[in-house]
């Protein structure tokens, strides 16, 4: 109401103020912008550029050659399988948890929320460790599992479990505040109009939370494909069998196969870029994170 509304008008007003020291504020402004850009450049832009630069150091042929390696292919396959299992499960969990927490009042709700947040605060190594302690040879279920010839740790199920632990807050944390903010009115209206629970969810709730859901899912996916610490502890690093892409990067890197390591890294970087692009598009569509 009072005063200027947008960025341009604001800066126009500020610089029109009597006694406004244009010189100082311009210097401060450009100083801050420069500092910010240098900080980001050294920390983010240079390493990202380095990934592609090293990966392509020996030309495109060597770059694509890196992906011909059967172990690399196995790692990519394993990563995709893990994500394909983990992301849908966590999405399902996220929606259910958000529905339960946002739509109802019950005792122990804040405890539940704390539990959902917990994996974000736990060190990834600890996240892996707990599964080793549970399903490893000396773990609680270790002996029983061995008797029945089931392997969890140092095998695919362990990788999936650890990844699930690390990534499951993402969808739920995105949806809970969103659904709390949207309130219950429209759902209640739908139900009093005779709609059933499923119909209400798919026709009323889902369309309203879809951007938040997309947001949560892409973040969950990015973390699931890129998780290193937790997976590293439970996988046993059996080359070609239990190495996901990030683990494979480590192996290649330690073997001084830089082109190979950075080629795989470049793929994961592209994944991150795509994730950011989708995220930006979602935000453009009007979805605001709180």
């Amino acid at each position, binding site marked *: 109401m009072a*005063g200027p509304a947008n960025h341009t008008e604001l800066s126009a007003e500020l610089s*029109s*103020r009597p006694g406004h020291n244009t010189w100082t504020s311009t210097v401060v402004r450009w100083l801050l912008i420069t500092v910010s850009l240098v900080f980001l450049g050294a920390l983010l832009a240079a390493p990202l550029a380095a990934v592609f630069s090293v990966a392509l150091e020996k030309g495109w042929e060597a770059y694509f050659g890196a992906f011909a390696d059967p172990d690399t292919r196995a790692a990519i396959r394993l990563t995709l399988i893990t994500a394909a299992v983990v992301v849908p499960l966590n999405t399902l969990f996220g929606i259910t948890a958000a529905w339960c927490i946002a739509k109802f009042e019950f005792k122990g709700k804040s405890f539940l929320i704390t539990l959902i947040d917990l994996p974000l605060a736990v060190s990834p190594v600890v996240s892996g460790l707990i599964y080793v302690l549970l399903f490893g040879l000396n773990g609680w279920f270790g002996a029983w599992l061995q008797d029945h010839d089931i392997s969890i740790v140092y095998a695919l199920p362990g990788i999936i479990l650890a990844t699930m632990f690390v990534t499951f807050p993402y969808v739920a944390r995105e949806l809970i505040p969103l659904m709390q903010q949207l309130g219950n009115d429209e759902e209640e209206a739908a139900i009093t109009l005779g709609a059933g629970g499923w119909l209400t969810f798919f026709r009323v709730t889902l369309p309203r939370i879809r951007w938040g859901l997309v947001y949560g899912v892409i973040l969950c996916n990015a973390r699931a494909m890129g998780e290193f610490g937790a997976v590293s502890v439970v996988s046993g690093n059996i080359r070609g069998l239990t190495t996901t892409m990030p683990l494979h990067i480590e192996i290649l890197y330690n073997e001084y196969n830089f082109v190979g390591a950075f080629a795989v890294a470049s793929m994961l970087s592209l994944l991150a870029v795509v994730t950011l692009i989708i995220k930006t598009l979602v935000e453009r569509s009007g979805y605001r994170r709180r």
Partner: protein
Amino acid sequence: MSIALDQVTKRYQEQPVVNDVSIEIGEGEFFVLLGPSGSGKSTLLRAIAGLTGIDHGRISLHGRDVTHVRARDRGVGLVFQNYALFRHMTVADNIEFALRVRRMRAADRRARRKELLKLVALEGMDERLPGQLSGGQQQRVAVARALAHKPQVLLLDEPFGALDAKIREELRRTIRSVQRELGIATVLVTHDQEEAFALADTIGVMNHGRLLEVGNPNDLYTQPATRFVATFLGAANLLLARQSADGIRFGATPVNAEGPERVPAGREHEVVAVLRPEEVEIAGAREHLSSNYIAKGAVEEIVFTGALERLRVRLLDEPSAAMLLGPGGANDARLEVTRTQPERRDLPLQTGAQVALGARRLHVLPTPLSSFLACAPTEAAAAALANEPLLAQLSTNMKTRVVLRSIAQGPEVTGSPLPFTGVAAISAGPDAAKTVEWLLRNGANEVLVLPRNAPSPTRVFIHWTHEAARRATLAVSASLLRHVSAEAIYLGIVPEGPPGAGHAAPMRALLDARSEAQSSHGLEMRTELAIGETVSELTRTLSSGAAQMLVLGITDIEHAGTAYRSLLAAQPGWPVLLVYRSGEPQLRAEAAA
């Protein structure tokens, strides 16, 4: 003077948001700036506070020119609509903020704070945080904070906007009493006319960045000079009446009111009259009216609102065509009437009842622009003309109507009433000048020549060819400029001659024109001087920029069809508003006086 603004202009991206505003506010005066949102009133307040620089003009506080002084050195107290309290500081810290900045001693700060909290009736609230107070209390703290450093002036930007009605009234009383007690010059910005009436010693009404009128609340309400002020300050029925040499007629019935200017015999002017709903008298029959009869009507709607009864009455006979605007909007031209309980008891009415209407008090606006007449060879062309963006904008802003008229230029029409009243609008083109001449001969006094899709002007040039047209041209310009946000520039043109010779007189005329515009019409304008032949200089000036317009005062019909041909035929062209006043000797003498 406590606060003096001299021709203050502020532009955002070339658009003036505050346009040539001059105000003088006296010692201890409570001045209310009233206007709709976007009228520039908040920007003006921020300019006084120093939070916005101005592009032109001067601001002085207590005789000190502060135009280029920083906000923090101006010594003003500013209260914001949303309080703008520092939420992490206690009430005490908030109030002492200005004193702390000035490094006042703690004991003195404390004493001053106690004094202020007492003044705003918040004693004992020192250690509360703003979040623990109600909205009204927060705003009291904000007032106390703004007064802490004993500012020379207190500025309040919609201070009651975020409060509900009851607290609003209470706080209003507090602010008024604090202001009286301190005797501090105060400017309050609001869009609420009731608030303005309740608080103001003087009200300034703003619209489109211009200060339209300044005056005490009663004068502004009873004798507004503009239709905007008439309708913005309370409800008003706007009616079209006709003024001739004999006086003012409303339809066929003469009414007792004063017109804005004298009219020569044989010609007629259309004028706009303001009739407040409470000034309408209703009677069963014409004979029972104690006031001036204006029309018969049928009651369409009765709403009981407690103290008052509101009626909407449809005018039955000819004057219904003269209804411009009831408070309900332009499309339902119904006379709005309010009656008190005693009046209601004397004559109980049902909807559908036929009544006689009288006007106890009719105020004729001094504006020379009344309604528009879109003239074109065919009805369809006239309709297209009425939809021209500039004409549509003007009629909306002026709350007036556009009547379509197809004209066939033939022999001169004579007799009374003359067919053309109000501002005739025609399209620009090679034949425009001829049409203008024909219209002027047939009674039109103002003709607006519109090129296709002309934008709303940002600069309006004013010029008259003869001094006899000065007064009318200035009045028309002032009226026009209240409804578009453009700068006004008077263009003086001196014929070419030996250098240095005879320029003193035109210069004086230029300055006279400017001071007359300001004093008689409230129009702030800049002046420019050009040397050369009139029409070519006008053309040159108008071509010098985009979105320009001309108001041209002329006194002779004879040469109109030929003299201005090139001016009105130019491509792409510019809007020209021609103001014609006959150069009769008696009027000439008056103009000279």
